[in-house]
């Protein structure tokens, strides 16, 4: 593997940050992953190609690719991979790395994910109404107008709560999450 000359290579860091990541070394470049992917045709690089790019140390190109963001988490690739590589888990690793480096693709919905987890950390539950309004307000006000008809219908049918649900023991959850973040920083693993 090409080395970054200083510290671990990109390949090693990707392997290290993924549970079961060692199996990436066994990739045959067979392409079963890309062929099984429902959104593969719209990806900058299929998972197979992306893995070759990781092995070639093309860090910037890999982190800027739309591939992990277009992954729908259907696990077809992982189920079919003859080498049992946890491909979907690698997509999550690459998203985290791209966000940490601020290098993500313009289609990345890192802000959507951030808004989502913001509500989860605050209330212990997800909050779709808040998420939809906050996210679209900042990202596509026109889209919000277009979708507001649907939102209204969902609300009428009792499928959208306008006030968040909240768990009782928020302080316990906060303590757990803060500690997990502290450990992650300490271990210098990709957050």
């Amino acid at each position, binding site marked *: 593997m090409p080395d970054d000359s200083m510290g671990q290579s990109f390949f090693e860091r990707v392997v290290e940050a993924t549970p079961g990541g060692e199996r990436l070394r066994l990739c045959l470049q067979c392409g079963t992953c890309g062929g099984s992917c429902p959104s593969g045709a719209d990806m900058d690089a299929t998972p197979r190609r992306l893995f070759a790019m990781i092995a070639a140390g093309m860090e910037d190109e890999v982190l800027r690719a739309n591939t992990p963001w277009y992954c729908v988490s259907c696990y077809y690739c992982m*189920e079919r991979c003859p080498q049992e590589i946890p491909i979907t888990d690698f997509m999550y690793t690459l998203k985290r790395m791209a966000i940490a480096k601020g290098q993500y693709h313009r289609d990345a919905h890192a802000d959507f994910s951030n808004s989502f987890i913001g509500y989860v950390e605050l209330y212990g539950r997800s909050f779709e109404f808040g998420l939809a309004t906050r996210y679209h307000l900042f990202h596509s006000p026109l889209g919000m107008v277009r979708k507001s008809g649907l939102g209204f219908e969902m609300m009428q049918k009792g499928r959208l709560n306008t006030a968040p649900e909240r768990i009782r023991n928020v302080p*316990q959850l906060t303590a*757990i*999450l803060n500690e997990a973040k502290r*450990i992650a920083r300490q271990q210098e693993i*990709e*957050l």
Partner: protein
Amino acid sequence: MSQTNGHSYAYYPGCSLQATAHAYDLSTKRVADILGMQLQEVDDWNCCGATEYFSIMSLPAYSLVARNLALAANQGAQELVAPCSACYLNLRKTNDYMGKYRSKVGDPVNEALAAGGLHYTPGTVSVRHLLDVLVTDIGYDAIAAKVTYPLKGLRIAPYYGCLIVRPDTQYNPEYPTHLDELMRVLGATVVDFPLKAHCCGGHMTQISEEVAYELIRRILHNAAEYEADLIVTLCPMCQLNLDAYQPQANRMFGTSYNLPVLFFTQLMGLAFGLDAKDVGIGSEIVSARNALAKIGREEEPAERTPTRRDKKALPMPPMP
């Protein structure tokens, strides 16, 4: 009415069942009651993080999920049942990875849990999907015994989506059949449905509408090709995508699909003799009224009209 077969489970409804999929929660509880299942909600459970938390942070995401496993174990549960496929995957995966990758996941997660006074030994509870529990533990025969209004003549496309069969489950990952079998037990006609385990797009509607609506279109097209009256699902995300975004997908592709998407528990409830309202029918965006009129089980019984014979159908007497 009640069976004393001692089926007791910890119940993890998940956030969707509190809002967009409240009909799934309602119908699950009604059906469980009829089948003599005890569902004890995990007290003070939190969100599983969906796919979003894992995209931003790894260890906090596993810890978030693990709090639920710890709470369920403290409640004395051996089996934890989740009706939402995404919750099911996150709970199952965390349970699995904590044991399999102790140094990377298991140990640090327990260190984090300790900050909240909790601990979880991986594997203490076994995580199950609601459909699996119903067909395996309760069984087709016990379910059949409760059917009082068979769904005769209703053509159903059984939609599994992804996370109940992938990755690495006991079911066929590409062509599962347990939902098919359950629908047959309820008296329905199950249509062939090659895309039954393809992806609905998950949260793709938030990233690229073009990609998302194409995935939705394929599934609707496939169900329509086989002349299904409705699609039945077991996942709130799949239901939301196929139902709520169906009009928008129609607009994008100039199509006119009109396929209601119901939860399998809603159809179980109907077959068990519950009223449509009691299982949350009426909260779908694409109305199930016309489809259910075929079996005389549409939402408001006052407007019930006698089932008309299809002009092309063979001259058979109408079903009671």
